[in-house]
């Protein structure tokens, strides 16, 4: 009994008393806000309208009116769906065929194509429901108005039963294989964890050895130390993608020698971010807990398990600061679709901004520390 009261007394004065109540409250608030959308509304889609008719316009208006979809662009001539889905501006492409209106008036059946980007399967559930709903309603409306007709041939009869039939294609990961998003994401997370904590312990280690600010060391010399980490994690990532492709049948269409470029940029951004978050740590053992600042958001908000579209805009924008957000976009875009490097300037530009900001902050931190250490020596 004595030990119990002793422990109570100890707890009453410790941080745990506050943390155990505040922590879960913050988590409830944070995750509650993060997953507040429950379902994905207004997913962006693109329509290729080869019919250019009043009826195809009506159908597009109906797609747009659905709560699950938002038509962001209507394209008048043919375009490769790969191109339209390349930069994640849309999650699906609906193709309305030529002579759609004519065939409807003739009482014949038409096929409508929907091509969905299945690199993040969680983003598609709403769209599949929505388009089924719209076409089912449309089909019933059309067939009811035609019931008055008589003397129909076989083609007309088919048109009567299903005037519009849907041809669905799941692109880039047709079997919703976990290797293409979850396994790949876990591999990326492991590399992220190891690289940030290893690069993060550079500055504390140097400080301990007394080399950090020794004989006028400039930020450049610290910066350069990120290079081996970047090169090694690039090769490690490339190797594991190769393994996933060979063993796990992961799709990887880009040329490996071209994909090295974005991978290197990403790894540099990651190592520099590691140096930045580890810089002020007292010693290397404190760096590990700091890496969770990058680790957890990268795991949650970059499309490994759940598509970023499922999060409120605020969380989507916050993810822009994470190098992994851009790596995952590059993998889903360039690697899965054999996209050309020039089409991913946004992703590479964003990684460069991250590199620049991290380098700048590292430089400023070093400058501050150099001033702090030099000023007492001057006064003494």
């Amino acid at each position: 009994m004595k030990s119990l009261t002793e422990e109570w007394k100890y707890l009453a004065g410790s941080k745990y008393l506050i943390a155990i109540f505040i922590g879960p409250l913050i988590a409830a608030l944070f995750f509650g806000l993060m997953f507040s959308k429950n379902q994905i509304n207004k997913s962006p889609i693109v329509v290729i309208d080869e019919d250019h008719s009043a009826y195809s316009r009506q159908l597009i208006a109906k797609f747009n009116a659905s709560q699950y979809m938002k038509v962001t662009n209507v394209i008048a001539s043919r375009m490769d769906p790969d191109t339209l889905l390349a930069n994640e501006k849309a999650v699906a492409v609906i193709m309305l065929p030529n002579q759609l209106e004519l065939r409807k008036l003739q009482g014949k059946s038409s096929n409508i194509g929907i091509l969905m980007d299945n690199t993040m399967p969680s983003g598609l559930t709403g769209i599949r429901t929505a388009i089924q709903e719209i076409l089912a309603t449309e089909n019933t409306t059309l067939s009811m108005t035609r019931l008055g007709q008589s003397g129909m041939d076989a083609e007309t009869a088919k048109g009567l039963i299903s005037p519009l039939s849907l041809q669905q294609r799941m692109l880039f990961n047709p079997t919703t294989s976990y290797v293409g998003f979850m396994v790949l994401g876990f591999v990326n997370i492991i590399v992220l964890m190891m690289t940030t904590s290893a690069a993060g312990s550079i500055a504390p280690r140097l400080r301990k050895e007394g080399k950090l600010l020794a004989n006028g060391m400039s930020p450049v010399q610290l910066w350069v130390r990120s290079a081996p980490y970047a090169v090694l994690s690039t090769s490690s990532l490339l190797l594991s993608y190769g393994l996933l492709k060979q063993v796990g049948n992961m799709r990887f269409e880009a040329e490996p020698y071209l994909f090295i470029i974005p991978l290197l940029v990403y790894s540099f951004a990651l190592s520099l971010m590691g140096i930045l978050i580890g810089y002020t740590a007292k010693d290397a053992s404190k760096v590990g807990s700091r890496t969770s600042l990058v680790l957890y958001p990268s795991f949650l908000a970059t499309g490994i398990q759940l598509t970023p579209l499922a999060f409120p805009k605020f969380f989507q924008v916050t993810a822009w600061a994470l190098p992994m957000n851009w790596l995952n976009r590059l993998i889903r875009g360039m690697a899965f679709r054999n996209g050309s490097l020039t089409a991913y300037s946004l992703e590479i530009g964003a990684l460069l901004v991250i590199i620049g900001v991290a380098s700048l902050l590292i430089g400023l931190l070093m400058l501050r520390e150099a001033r702090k250490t030099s000023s007492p020596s001057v006064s003494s």
Partner: protein
Amino acid sequence: MKLKVGLYIGIAVVVIAGGALLAAKGKDAVSQAESRKQGVLEAEQRTIVYDQSPGTIVKINAAPGDPIKQGEVLFKVKSEEGAEVDVPSPDAGWISRIIVKPGDKLTQGMPVAVVQKSNYYADLYVQEGEIQKLEVNKSVNVHFPYLNRPAQVKGIVASISAAPQFASLRMTRERGQADLSMFLVRISVDSNSDLLPGMTAEVDFDEIAD
């Protein structure tokens, strides 16, 4: 030391600016592809209709796939009065189908053969903003990007007209291009052995000088 730090910070700022510029100004795959208009290569086909007095087919001079010239005799028909009548081809091109066989009785208005003209064409939909690049009879390069060995031929702008369905649309520009006026441009291409109707033809508007 000070100079070095200044240089370091300067380079970092330049990298940030460069990255931001790349992210903001860089073209994504869709905007890169927007200047490349695609259409389906089509061939004009013409059904030859027998338009003379009733008779019986005596001889057929052509088989499906044969090239023919304009005016070349395709059928010899013996009319009921005993006279021999020739049925010539109205266009140059290829025979794509022969519908009748020797001994068949023909009456006026019966289709006898289908001729595919030797000109192919592709219809492209072009936005208002780009239409000034084109004019009738202008020569353009037509690509066939999805062939195993991509081909390129010369094409001629055959006609430009307002696309009928787009003409009635409102001009809200609410969802990008579809609400703009569109123009229908027909590009005609001389047929050659590499090309077949149904292939995807592409005209790159960036290649065309104003």
